[in-house]
């Protein structure tokens, strides 16, 4: 029964992945990425990996959509050519026929699929992965660590070095973002040069301050709409 749910979720996942690749509006791609995150959280839940599903839920629903939108605010949302637009000039480049990359991708994918044939079946208790350190963790965690959730004891205690490395990696990500984006501080010198289309000037309304105190003046669009509606009502009466 669960296998049916599994298949259905995987099929939806495949459709979503295709959609992410095919849509030309990057906002729509962000939407589909959100759907992808929902589906993979479901899939992790079916496969009993609830901690992973939890991470996926927290990151996918809370953070990643916001960050992707913020990125779109920086770089613009339209893909003007079938290829990704790198600069405004590259729109003149005629579309290439990527036969050779396609060939490479197909061959690599074929080899990888061939490789999976040798892998032990999923969930088989005789698999090597279940016979190395996992039995020790599962059996001894109760009285060695005394934490009911084995995932926590593995992550924080048995594999404490790894988790420390991961924490450092997360920290490094922040440092990298700071280094990259703080060069945008003087956007007048750099930003307009690099993204010299109307997009950058359009976005001068702050992404974040918009709901805040700065929007006390009613936005012109809303006002115009209301006026039109009033006129309509008056006409009816």
């Amino acid at each position, binding site marked *: *029964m*669960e296998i*049916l*749910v599994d298949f*259905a*979720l995987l099929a*939806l996942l495949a*459709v*979503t992945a*295709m*959609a992410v690749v*095919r*849509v*030309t*509006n*990057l*906002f*729509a*791609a*962000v*939407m*589909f990425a*959100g*759907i992808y995150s*929902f*589906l993979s*959280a*479901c899939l992790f*839940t*079916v496969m*009993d990996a*609830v901690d992973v*599903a*939890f991470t996926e*839920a*927290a990151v996918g*629903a*809370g953070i990643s*959509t*916001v960050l992707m*939108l913020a990125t*779109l*605010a920086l770089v613009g*949302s*339209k*893909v003007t050519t079938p290829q990704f637009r790198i600069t405004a000039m590259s729109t003149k480049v005629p579309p290439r026929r990527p036969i050779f990359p396609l060939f490479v991708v197909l061959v690599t994918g074929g080899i990888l699929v061939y490789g999976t044939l040798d892998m032990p079946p999923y969930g088989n208790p005789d698999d090597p992965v279940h016979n190395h350190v996992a039995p020790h963790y599962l059996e001894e965690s109760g009285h060695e660590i005394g934490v009911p959730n084995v995932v926590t004891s593995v992550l924080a205690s048995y594999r404490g070095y790894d988790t420390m490395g991961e924490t450092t990696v997360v920290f490094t990500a922040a440092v990298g973002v700071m280094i990259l984006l703080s060069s945008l501080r003087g956007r007048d010198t750099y930003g307009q040069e690099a993204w010299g289309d109307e997009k950058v000037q*359009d*976005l001068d*309304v*702050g*992404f974040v301050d*918009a*709901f805040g105190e700065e*929007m006390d003046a009613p*936005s012109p*669009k809303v006002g115009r709409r209301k006026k039109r509606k009033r006129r309509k009502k008056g006409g009816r009466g």
Partner: protein
Amino acid sequence: MFIAAAVAILMAMALAMTRALLGPTVYDRVLAVNMFGTKTVLMIAVLGFLTGRPDFLDLALLYALINFIGTLAVLKFFEYGDLGRRVDGGGEAS
């Protein structure tokens, strides 16, 4: 009985997915994603019972709490971040 509910939710997910693919405006896609989020909450709750581990409900609770952050961010972006530009679904999935 849980599998019946799960199948119904999966059907609804597929239909919401269709709406997200059809568009036509970005707001329709936002609606589809929002609906997909609700479906995910239900799906995870049902799956917890289906697999016999209802502790998974923490996950459903999390989704119910922070689901609308994404929706709000998208809407805010359309309404204020991109003023003066017509927002239409330029990208059909083809």
